[in-house]
Protein backbone atom coordinates (compact mmCIF):
# COMPACT_ATOMS: atom_id res chain seq x y z
CA UNK A 1 0.00 0.00 0.00
CA UNK A 2 2.97 2.36 -0.34
CA UNK A 3 1.12 4.23 -3.08
CA UNK A 4 -1.20 5.51 -0.37
CA UNK A 5 -0.60 8.88 1.26
CA UNK A 6 -3.17 9.71 3.89
CA UNK A 7 -4.15 13.31 4.34
CA UNK A 8 -6.94 15.52 5.59
CA UNK A 9 -8.50 18.83 4.76
CA UNK A 10 -10.13 20.93 7.48
CA UNK A 11 -12.62 23.47 6.21
CA UNK A 12 -12.59 26.19 8.84
CA UNK A 13 -15.54 27.78 7.07
CA UNK A 14 -17.74 24.76 7.71
CA UNK A 15 -16.63 24.09 11.28
CA UNK A 16 -19.34 25.01 13.78
CA UNK A 17 -17.29 24.11 16.85
CA UNK A 18 -19.77 21.40 17.88
CA UNK A 19 -17.03 19.16 19.34
CA UNK A 20 -18.55 16.05 17.77
CA UNK A 21 -15.16 15.10 16.37
CA UNK A 22 -13.62 15.36 19.83
CA UNK A 23 -16.15 13.00 21.33
CA UNK A 24 -15.92 10.58 18.43
CA UNK A 25 -12.18 10.50 18.71
CA UNK A 26 -12.36 9.83 22.46
CA UNK A 27 -14.75 6.98 21.93
CA UNK A 28 -12.74 5.49 19.09
CA UNK A 29 -9.28 5.76 20.63
CA UNK A 30 -9.93 4.91 24.30
CA UNK A 31 -8.96 8.39 25.46
CA UNK A 32 -9.53 8.67 29.22
CA UNK A 33 -12.39 10.89 30.34
CA UNK A 34 -11.05 14.35 31.25
CA UNK A 35 -12.21 15.54 34.67
CA UNK A 36 -12.33 19.26 35.53
CA UNK A 37 -9.09 18.67 37.43
CA UNK A 38 -7.41 17.74 34.16
CA UNK A 39 -8.55 20.97 32.54
CA UNK A 40 -7.49 23.19 35.44
CA UNK A 41 -4.08 21.51 35.47
CA UNK A 42 -3.79 21.79 31.67
CA UNK A 43 -3.39 18.04 31.46
CA UNK A 44 -6.51 17.18 29.48
CA UNK A 45 -6.06 14.79 26.57
CA UNK A 46 -7.89 15.30 23.29
CA UNK A 47 -6.26 14.06 20.11
CA UNK A 48 -8.36 16.53 18.21
CA UNK A 49 -9.37 19.77 19.87
CA UNK A 50 -11.43 22.76 18.84
CA UNK A 51 -9.51 25.93 19.54
CA UNK A 52 -11.89 28.83 20.06
CA UNK A 53 -10.82 32.41 19.51
CA UNK A 54 -13.03 35.40 20.17
CA UNK A 55 -13.08 38.13 17.61
CA UNK A 56 -14.39 41.67 17.92
CA UNK A 57 -15.68 43.61 20.90
CA UNK A 58 -18.98 43.16 22.75
CA UNK A 59 -21.76 43.37 21.56
CA UNK A 60 -20.67 42.09 18.13
CA UNK A 61 -18.43 39.24 19.21
CA UNK A 62 -17.72 36.39 16.83
CA UNK A 63 -16.34 33.01 17.87
CA UNK A 64 -13.80 31.46 15.54
CA UNK A 65 -13.19 27.71 15.68
CA UNK A 66 -10.04 25.92 14.65
CA UNK A 67 -9.92 22.12 14.86
CA UNK A 68 -6.33 21.12 15.60
CA UNK A 69 -5.00 17.57 15.50
CA UNK A 70 -1.63 16.02 14.75
CA UNK A 71 -0.65 17.45 11.37
CA UNK A 72 1.33 14.31 10.37
CA UNK A 73 4.18 16.49 9.14
CA UNK A 74 6.60 15.47 6.43
CA UNK A 75 9.37 17.26 8.32
CA UNK A 76 8.04 16.40 11.75
CA UNK A 77 10.06 18.25 14.41
CA UNK A 78 8.85 15.73 16.98
CA UNK A 79 10.40 12.69 15.31
CA UNK A 80 14.19 13.13 15.32
CA UNK A 81 14.36 14.30 18.92
CA UNK A 82 13.03 11.01 20.27
CA UNK A 83 15.97 8.97 21.57
CA UNK A 84 14.18 5.64 21.14
CA UNK A 85 12.42 5.85 17.76
CA UNK A 86 9.07 5.91 19.56
CA UNK A 87 7.77 8.19 16.84
CA UNK A 88 8.72 8.05 13.18
CA UNK A 89 7.39 8.60 9.69
CA UNK A 90 5.89 5.68 7.79
CA UNK A 91 5.61 5.21 4.05
CA UNK A 92 1.95 6.25 4.03
CA UNK A 93 2.78 9.82 5.09
CA UNK A 94 1.69 9.20 8.66
CA UNK A 95 3.47 10.17 11.87
CA UNK A 96 3.46 6.96 13.93
CA UNK A 97 3.57 6.83 17.73
CA UNK A 98 4.79 3.51 19.21
CA UNK A 99 3.57 3.34 22.80
CA UNK A 100 5.78 0.42 23.81
CA UNK A 101 8.97 2.21 22.93
CA UNK A 102 8.07 5.49 24.59
CA UNK A 103 10.00 6.25 27.77
CA UNK A 104 8.33 9.59 28.31
CA UNK A 105 11.07 12.17 27.84
CA UNK A 106 8.35 14.53 26.48
CA UNK A 107 10.90 16.14 24.17
CA UNK A 108 8.63 15.47 21.18
CA UNK A 109 5.85 17.39 22.89
CA UNK A 110 8.13 20.35 23.49
CA UNK A 111 9.19 20.34 19.89
CA UNK A 112 5.69 20.03 18.39
CA UNK A 113 4.67 23.48 17.12
CA UNK A 114 0.99 22.43 17.07
CA UNK A 115 0.70 21.29 20.71
CA UNK A 116 -0.74 18.12 19.22
CA UNK A 117 1.03 15.68 21.55
CA UNK A 118 -0.37 14.70 24.91
CA UNK A 119 1.23 13.10 27.94
CA UNK A 120 -0.42 10.66 30.35
CA UNK A 121 0.38 12.23 33.68
CA UNK A 122 -1.96 9.80 35.45
CA UNK A 123 -2.89 6.20 34.87
CA UNK A 124 -6.10 6.44 32.84
CA UNK A 125 -9.26 5.33 34.65
CA UNK A 126 -12.84 4.84 33.54
CA UNK A 127 -16.00 4.43 35.56
CA UNK A 128 -16.58 0.71 36.19
CA UNK A 129 -19.42 0.46 33.70
CA UNK A 130 -17.38 1.97 30.87
CA UNK A 131 -14.71 -0.70 30.88
CA UNK A 132 -16.64 -2.83 28.42
CA UNK A 133 -17.06 0.04 26.00
CA UNK A 134 -13.34 0.36 25.27
CA UNK A 135 -12.32 -0.18 21.67
CA UNK A 136 -10.55 -3.56 21.49
CA UNK A 137 -8.48 -2.50 18.49
CA UNK A 138 -6.76 0.32 20.37
CA UNK A 139 -4.17 0.08 23.15
CA UNK A 140 -5.02 1.71 26.46
CA UNK A 141 -2.04 3.90 27.23
CA UNK A 142 -0.50 3.63 30.65
CA UNK A 143 0.84 6.63 32.54
CA UNK A 144 4.13 8.12 31.46
CA UNK A 145 3.51 7.77 27.72
CA UNK A 146 3.07 10.30 24.95
CA UNK A 147 0.05 9.90 22.69
CA UNK A 148 -1.46 11.77 19.80
CA UNK A 149 -3.78 11.49 16.81
CA UNK A 150 -2.97 8.33 14.86
CA UNK A 151 -5.27 8.99 11.89
CA UNK A 152 -7.24 6.05 13.34
CA UNK A 153 -4.45 3.73 12.26
CA UNK A 154 -6.48 0.72 13.48
CA UNK A 155 -9.13 1.47 10.86
CA UNK A 156 -6.51 1.93 8.16
CA UNK A 157 -4.93 -1.41 8.98
CA UNK A 158 -8.27 -3.17 9.03
CA UNK A 159 -9.25 -1.62 5.69
CA UNK A 160 -5.91 -2.55 4.21
CA UNK A 161 -6.38 -6.16 5.30
CA UNK A 162 -9.86 -6.29 3.80
CA UNK A 163 -8.64 -4.71 0.59
CA UNK A 164 -5.88 -7.25 0.31
CA UNK A 165 -8.32 -10.10 0.98
CA UNK A 166 -10.96 -8.93 -1.47
CA UNK A 167 -8.41 -7.68 -3.99
CA UNK A 168 -10.14 -4.33 -4.56
CA UNK A 169 -9.57 -0.89 -3.13
CA UNK A 170 -13.16 -0.16 -2.11
CA UNK A 171 -12.48 -0.60 1.59
CA UNK A 172 -9.64 1.87 1.40
CA UNK A 173 -11.55 4.30 -0.77
CA UNK A 174 -14.41 4.51 1.72
CA UNK A 175 -12.16 4.81 4.72
CA UNK A 176 -12.99 7.47 7.30
CA UNK A 177 -11.36 8.54 10.54
CA UNK A 178 -13.65 8.77 13.55
CA UNK A 179 -13.57 12.55 13.57
CA UNK A 180 -14.27 12.93 9.87
CA UNK A 181 -17.07 10.37 10.14
CA UNK A 182 -18.67 12.23 13.02
CA UNK A 183 -18.41 15.73 11.58
CA UNK A 184 -21.98 16.89 10.86
CA UNK A 185 -20.88 19.65 8.49
CA UNK A 186 -18.23 17.63 6.66
CA UNK A 187 -15.63 20.17 7.76
CA UNK A 188 -13.15 17.32 8.12
CA UNK A 189 -12.37 15.39 4.95
CA UNK A 190 -10.02 12.42 5.18
CA UNK A 191 -8.65 10.36 2.31
CA UNK A 192 -5.84 9.21 0.08
CA UNK A 193 -3.88 12.12 -1.38
CA UNK A 194 -2.30 9.93 -4.04
CA UNK A 195 -5.72 9.13 -5.46
CA UNK A 196 -6.34 12.10 -7.76
CA UNK A 197 -10.14 11.85 -7.80
CA UNK A 198 -10.61 11.47 -4.06
CA UNK A 199 -12.45 14.41 -2.49
CA UNK A 200 -9.53 15.23 -0.19
CA UNK A 201 -6.98 15.54 -2.96
CA UNK A 202 -9.31 17.84 -4.88
CA UNK A 203 -9.88 20.09 -1.87
CA UNK A 204 -6.18 19.88 -1.02
CA UNK A 205 -5.20 22.34 -3.76
CA UNK A 206 -8.25 24.57 -3.30
CA UNK A 207 -7.34 28.25 -3.54
CA UNK A 208 -8.55 28.67 0.05
CA UNK A 209 -6.18 26.06 1.40
CA UNK A 210 -3.31 26.96 3.70
CA UNK A 211 -1.00 25.27 6.22
CA UNK A 212 -0.79 25.98 9.93
CA UNK A 213 2.48 27.80 10.79
CA UNK A 214 3.91 27.38 7.31
CA UNK A 215 7.06 29.32 8.29
CA UNK A 216 8.31 26.32 10.29
CA UNK A 217 8.39 24.26 7.10
CA UNK A 218 6.90 21.13 8.64
CA UNK A 219 5.11 20.18 5.39
CA UNK A 220 1.99 18.73 7.07
CA UNK A 221 -0.41 16.27 5.44
CA UNK A 222 -3.30 18.33 6.80
CA UNK A 223 -4.35 21.52 5.10
CA UNK A 224 -6.92 24.05 6.21
CA UNK A 225 -9.46 25.92 4.06
CA UNK A 226 -9.81 29.59 4.95
CA UNK A 227 -13.04 30.96 6.31
CA UNK A 228 -15.02 32.82 3.66
CA UNK A 229 -15.03 36.13 5.47
CA UNK A 230 -13.25 39.42 4.95
CA UNK A 231 -11.47 38.96 8.27
CA UNK A 232 -10.45 35.39 7.61
CA UNK A 233 -7.20 36.17 5.87
CA UNK A 234 -5.39 37.79 8.78
CA UNK A 235 -7.22 35.62 11.34
CA UNK A 236 -5.98 32.38 9.88
CA UNK A 237 -2.37 33.45 10.32
CA UNK A 238 -2.61 35.87 13.21
CA UNK A 239 -3.54 33.64 16.14
Amino acid at each position, binding site marked *: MSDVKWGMVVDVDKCSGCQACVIACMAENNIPINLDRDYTENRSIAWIRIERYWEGEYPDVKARFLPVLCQHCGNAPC*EPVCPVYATFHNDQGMNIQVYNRCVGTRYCANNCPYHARYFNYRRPTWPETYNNYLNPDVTVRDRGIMEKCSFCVQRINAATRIAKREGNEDAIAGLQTACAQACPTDALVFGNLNNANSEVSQLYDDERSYVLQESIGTQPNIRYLKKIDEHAAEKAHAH
Partner: protein
Amino acid sequence: MADNKDIMGVFADTDTAAEGARQLKSAGFVQDDYDVLTGNPYPEGAFGEHVKPNRLFVFALAGGFVGFAIAFLFTAATQTAFPLVTGGKPILAIPAMMIIMYEMTLLFAMIFTVTGVIFESRLPRPSGAGPVYDTRITLGYIGLIVTTSEDRLEKAEEALKAAGAEDIVRESS
Protein backbone atom coordinates in the same frame (compact mmCIF):
# COMPACT_ATOMS: atom_id res chain seq x y z
CA MET B 1 71.18 -9.27 34.94
CA ALA B 2 69.32 -11.37 37.42
CA ASP B 3 71.96 -11.30 40.16
CA ASN B 4 71.67 -7.51 40.56
CA LYS B 5 70.72 -6.35 44.02
CA ASP B 6 69.17 -3.10 45.22
CA ILE B 7 70.50 -0.96 48.01
CA MET B 8 68.92 2.27 49.13
CA GLY B 9 70.27 5.16 51.15
CA VAL B 10 67.66 7.25 52.92
CA PHE B 11 68.53 10.96 53.09
CA ALA B 12 66.95 13.60 55.27
CA ASP B 13 67.05 16.49 52.82
CA THR B 14 67.81 17.57 49.29
CA ASP B 15 71.39 18.66 49.77
CA THR B 16 72.62 15.45 51.35
CA ALA B 17 70.77 13.48 48.68
CA ALA B 18 72.39 15.54 45.95
CA GLU B 19 75.71 14.99 47.71
CA GLY B 20 74.94 11.27 47.69
CA ALA B 21 74.41 11.39 43.96
CA ARG B 22 77.78 13.10 43.52
CA GLN B 23 79.46 10.50 45.74
CA LEU B 24 77.94 7.69 43.67
CA LYS B 25 79.20 9.30 40.48
CA SER B 26 82.69 9.66 41.88
CA ALA B 27 82.45 6.03 43.04
CA GLY B 28 82.02 5.13 39.38
CA PHE B 29 78.29 4.59 39.19
CA VAL B 30 76.60 5.89 36.04
CA GLN B 31 73.20 7.47 35.81
CA ASP B 32 71.39 4.26 34.92
CA ASP B 33 72.78 2.50 38.00
CA TYR B 34 70.82 4.49 40.51
CA ASP B 35 67.30 5.80 40.89
CA VAL B 36 65.62 8.27 43.25
CA LEU B 37 62.54 7.93 45.44
CA THR B 38 60.87 11.13 46.57
CA GLY B 39 57.62 12.04 48.31
CA ASN B 40 56.82 14.73 45.76
CA PRO B 41 58.09 15.99 42.42
CA TYR B 42 61.48 17.72 42.30
CA PRO B 43 62.85 19.82 39.47
CA GLU B 44 64.11 17.45 36.86
CA GLY B 45 67.72 16.38 37.17
CA ALA B 46 67.97 17.73 40.69
CA PHE B 47 69.85 14.54 41.62
CA GLY B 48 71.57 14.12 38.30
CA GLU B 49 69.15 11.34 37.46
CA HIS B 50 67.73 11.17 33.96
CA VAL B 51 64.34 9.91 32.85
CA LYS B 52 64.05 7.69 29.80
CA PRO B 53 61.71 9.12 27.13
CA ASN B 54 58.14 7.86 27.24
CA ARG B 55 55.65 7.13 24.49
CA LEU B 56 52.56 8.47 26.20
CA PHE B 57 51.23 10.40 23.21
CA VAL B 58 51.15 7.17 21.19
CA PHE B 59 48.54 5.81 23.57
CA ALA B 60 46.41 8.93 23.20
CA LEU B 61 46.56 8.78 19.41
CA ALA B 62 45.79 5.07 19.26
CA GLY B 63 42.88 5.57 21.61
CA GLY B 64 41.59 8.38 19.47
CA PHE B 65 41.61 6.27 16.35
CA VAL B 66 39.98 3.31 18.10
CA GLY B 67 37.24 5.50 19.52
CA PHE B 68 36.59 7.16 16.19
CA ALA B 69 36.30 3.80 14.43
CA ILE B 70 33.96 2.36 17.06
CA ALA B 71 31.75 5.43 16.99
CA PHE B 72 31.60 5.45 13.22
CA LEU B 73 30.61 1.80 13.04
CA PHE B 74 28.07 2.20 15.84
CA THR B 75 26.33 5.21 14.39
CA ALA B 76 26.38 4.05 10.78
CA ALA B 77 25.29 0.51 11.63
CA THR B 78 22.47 1.43 13.99
CA GLN B 79 20.94 3.88 11.54
CA THR B 80 21.11 1.57 8.55
CA ALA B 81 20.08 -1.55 10.51
CA PHE B 82 16.46 -0.39 10.75
CA PRO B 83 16.06 2.62 8.47
CA LEU B 84 13.27 4.67 10.02
CA VAL B 85 12.73 8.15 8.64
CA THR B 86 12.51 10.78 11.35
CA GLY B 87 11.83 14.42 10.66
CA GLY B 88 12.65 14.05 6.98
CA LYS B 89 16.33 13.69 7.84
CA PRO B 90 18.64 11.46 5.79
CA ILE B 91 19.07 7.92 7.12
CA LEU B 92 22.79 8.60 7.60
CA ALA B 93 22.61 11.94 9.39
CA ILE B 94 26.28 12.96 9.24
CA PRO B 95 26.28 15.99 11.57
CA ALA B 96 24.61 13.91 14.26
CA MET B 97 27.13 11.12 13.69
CA MET B 98 30.00 13.62 13.92
CA ILE B 99 28.98 14.68 17.40
CA ILE B 100 29.01 11.10 18.65
CA MET B 101 32.25 10.27 16.87
CA TYR B 102 33.83 13.33 18.44
CA GLU B 103 32.84 12.28 21.94
CA MET B 104 33.89 8.66 21.54
CA THR B 105 37.23 9.68 20.03
CA LEU B 106 38.04 11.73 23.09
CA LEU B 107 36.65 9.13 25.49
CA PHE B 108 38.90 6.39 24.19
CA ALA B 109 41.85 8.76 23.91
CA MET B 110 41.49 9.50 27.61
CA ILE B 111 41.05 5.89 28.63
CA PHE B 112 44.11 4.86 26.64
CA THR B 113 46.11 7.75 28.08
CA VAL B 114 45.44 6.66 31.64
CA THR B 115 46.34 3.09 30.73
CA GLY B 116 49.48 4.50 29.19
CA VAL B 117 50.43 6.48 32.28
CA ILE B 118 49.97 3.47 34.53
CA PHE B 119 51.81 1.19 32.13
CA GLU B 120 54.63 3.64 31.46
CA SER B 121 55.21 4.30 35.15
CA ARG B 122 55.65 0.56 35.55
CA LEU B 123 52.43 0.17 37.54
CA PRO B 124 50.64 -1.66 38.96
CA ARG B 125 53.26 -3.57 40.91
CA PRO B 126 51.60 -6.58 42.50
CA SER B 127 54.47 -6.67 44.99
CA GLY B 128 53.42 -3.28 46.37
CA ALA B 129 56.07 -0.62 46.83
CA GLY B 130 58.74 -3.28 46.54
CA PRO B 131 61.33 -4.87 48.81
CA VAL B 132 63.63 -1.86 48.97
CA TYR B 133 61.40 0.93 50.21
CA ASP B 134 61.09 3.15 53.24
CA THR B 135 57.84 4.68 54.43
CA ARG B 136 59.75 7.81 55.42
CA ILE B 137 59.94 8.66 51.71
CA THR B 138 56.41 10.06 51.93
CA LEU B 139 57.50 12.03 54.98
CA GLY B 140 59.83 14.04 52.76
CA TYR B 141 62.91 11.86 52.98
CA ILE B 142 64.75 11.04 49.78
CA GLY B 143 65.88 7.59 48.81
CA LEU B 144 68.76 6.83 46.46
CA ILE B 145 68.46 3.29 45.12
CA VAL B 146 71.51 1.71 43.59
CA THR B 147 70.93 -1.36 41.45
CA THR B 148 74.18 -3.20 40.98
CA SER B 149 75.92 -6.54 41.24
CA GLU B 150 76.69 -8.14 44.60
CA ASP B 151 80.35 -7.20 44.62
CA ARG B 152 79.84 -3.49 44.17
CA LEU B 153 77.14 -3.21 46.86
CA GLU B 154 79.76 -2.38 49.50
CA LYS B 155 81.15 0.42 47.36
CA ALA B 156 77.68 1.86 46.89
CA GLU B 157 76.95 1.59 50.61
CA GLU B 158 80.01 3.50 51.72
CA ALA B 159 79.40 6.11 49.05
CA LEU B 160 75.90 6.62 50.40
CA LYS B 161 77.14 6.60 54.01
CA ALA B 162 79.84 9.11 53.15
CA ALA B 163 77.18 11.45 51.79
CA GLY B 164 75.37 11.22 55.10
CA ALA B 165 72.63 8.75 54.50
CA GLU B 166 70.51 8.40 57.64
CA ASP B 167 69.79 4.79 56.91
CA ILE B 168 70.68 2.03 54.51
CA VAL B 169 67.99 -0.36 53.27
CA ARG B 170 69.13 -3.60 51.71
CA GLU B 171 67.21 -6.09 49.62
CA SER B 172 66.43 -9.05 51.87
CA SER B 173 67.81 -12.07 50.12
